[in-house]
């Protein structure tokens, strides 16, 4: 019994210090799941589905124990991208290993920087890849329904993908996950922004936990009509990340104004509500788009 309690304690502690923290990720996933359009399959609209998608919201952060260094090392860079460094490769390739090669080429031109993929980050790649898994799973769901086959395994899989996807989309809504200003301002700092490590977590976890009610961002999400993403998913998602990136300095400005201290200020709370709502809206629209696009027959992979 003691061992169980100890294990539970470590599990809880291990989830801290990442991304939005459990509260922010749960908010993003729950709001997205609750606002999915009616045209999606009924199983996605059930309370148990919303509960599962919410539960999975923090799953990738549970894979980061130092006791499991292989997994931690492999998936830690999935949560962020330093766009200032990534931009040194030019327009981002759409495929992970093309990007890694492009980073290696850029590294040769910039020997003073660390341009390894694990340092620069892989956020848009993992997100696009999980999205495509979701789309593939929706396609198989449609086929199984048509064939009157058992859909329970694929439904469970779809819920897992939707929740897993939500974690990364949620990370993308946190401005500091898109920037070298990840945890304290670095480089020239004429405005005197905070440089101390720990701001990242204080913002995304402590402040959200203390000052943001799960329902606070909801009106912003419901005010946004579900829409299908247009064109290439990678390009659309990059536009979303770049939009988050425009708020990096704003985050530091608000911190300097004390907007995230304790219960924060109305401006600080409104800013966080907006970020979380942006994440929920993007996730909802990605799930919706995956469902609609899954009706299109898949290309023949064997041709490649």
């Amino acid at each position, binding site marked *: 019994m003691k*061992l*169980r309690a*100890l*294990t*539970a304690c*470590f*599990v809880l*502690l*291990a989830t*801290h*210090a990442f991304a939005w923290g459990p509260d922010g990720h749960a908010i993003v996933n729950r709001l997205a799941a609750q606002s999915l359009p009616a045209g999606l399959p009924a199983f996605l609209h059930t309370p148990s589905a919303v*509960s*599962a998608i919410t*539960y*999975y919201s923090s*799953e990738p952060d*549970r*894979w*980061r*124990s*130092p*006791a*499991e*260094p*292989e*997994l931690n*090392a*492999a*998936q830690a860079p999935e949560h962020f991208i330093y766009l200032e460094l990534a931009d040194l490769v030019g327009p981002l390739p*759409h*495929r*992970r*290993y093309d990007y890694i090669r492009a980073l290696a080429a850029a590294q040769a031109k910039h020997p003073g920087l660390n341009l*390894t*993929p*694990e340092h620069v980050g892989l956020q848009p*790649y993992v997100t*696009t*890849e999980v999205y*495509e*898994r979701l*789309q*593939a799973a929706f*396609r*198989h769901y449609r*086929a199984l329904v*048509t*064939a009157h086959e058992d859909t329970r*395994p694929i439904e*469970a*899989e779809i819920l*897992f993908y939707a929740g897993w996807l939500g974690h990364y989309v949620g990370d993308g809504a946190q401005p500091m996950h898109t920037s070298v200003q990840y945890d304290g301002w670095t480089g020239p700092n004429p405005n005197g922004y905070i440089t101390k490590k*720990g701001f*990242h*977590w204080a913002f995304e976890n402590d402040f959200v936990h203390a000052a943001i009610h799960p329902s606070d961002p909801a009106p912003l999400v419901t005010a946004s009509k579900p829409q299908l993403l247009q064109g290439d998913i990678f390009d659309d998602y990059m536009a979303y990340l770049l939009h988050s990136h425009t708020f990096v300095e704003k985050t530091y400005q608000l911190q300097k104004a004390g907007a995230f201290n304790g219960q924060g200020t109305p401006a600080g709370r409104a800013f966080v509500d907006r970020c979380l709502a942006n994440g929920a809206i993007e996730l909802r629209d990605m799930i919706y788009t995956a469902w609609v696009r899954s009706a299109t027959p*898949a*290309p*023949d*992979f064997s041709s*490649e």
Partner: protein
Amino acid sequence: MRTLRALARTAVAALLLPILCAPHCFAWGHDAHSFINKLAGENLPDDVPAFLRSPEALAALYYYGPQPDRWRSENNALYGSMVPEHDIDLEWADLAGPLPRTRYAYIAALAAAQAKHPELKLTPDKVGLLPYSTDEMYTMLMSAFRDYRSAVAKNQDTHPVEAEIVFLTGWLGHYVGDGSQPLHVTANYNGWTYGPNPNGYTTDNHIHSRFEGDFVHNNIKIEDVAPLVAASKPKTLPRDIFDDYVTYLRHSHSLVEKVYQLDKTGAFTGAGTPEGKAFTEQCIAAGAIELRDIIYTAWIHSADPIPVYHGN
């Protein structure tokens, strides 16, 4: 009415065609992956939670067996990223020295080896990442088991984590299964094109699918493989399974030439030969045994307390 039914059947068949066909030409094909997953689940020890041994879970494991092959149809970002997860050309990988323990250390080692071997293509997507995808999935499964233990201890709802565990187990099973297919661990992946060929092994690019797809589909039955798995007593591996798994892959690699030898005798053509059938059953059983033991290991070691993470 009959015409309508026939049309409906045709429509359903057309809809399912890409799904049913997609796994062929890759990995074990649908059948062997499903066999490996189900047999591993059926042979889990009794101290593994009952939900993972239930008929529903076994059906789901069977379904999830080929799942990573179904993602190939997306043919975009995912395709490029997930294809190398299924294999490793050990002849090339060994040029990078002893396999590093982490994915990006391996990628860096390959880049260093590339500089010494400019005539070869030593990119990770060419050489393959199978030990890494497997080890990472194993750890994700162990993490989910840990969450399950925690939820049970706190009387919380376990349904989401149970569903996740079944899915992760099925997904892991795909890669472990790939590792038992000798042609997934060699540069001679689909025809004897690497190294001298004094024995005249086939150089066509059909042996891979002939062996793992068509031959298995037409000749191998799950009930024929089941006794081989049942005869093996479940065991736990070291908590860090990387070395054990690489040993498993190297054992598969030791069978590469045997595949070509058998193929040359027609062992995998049409109904094949008894020797070809026995060999294939043994490979599939080896995959199920390794998967069962990895699942069991993940369960047992999920009880280990993990250190506190102190942030970035």
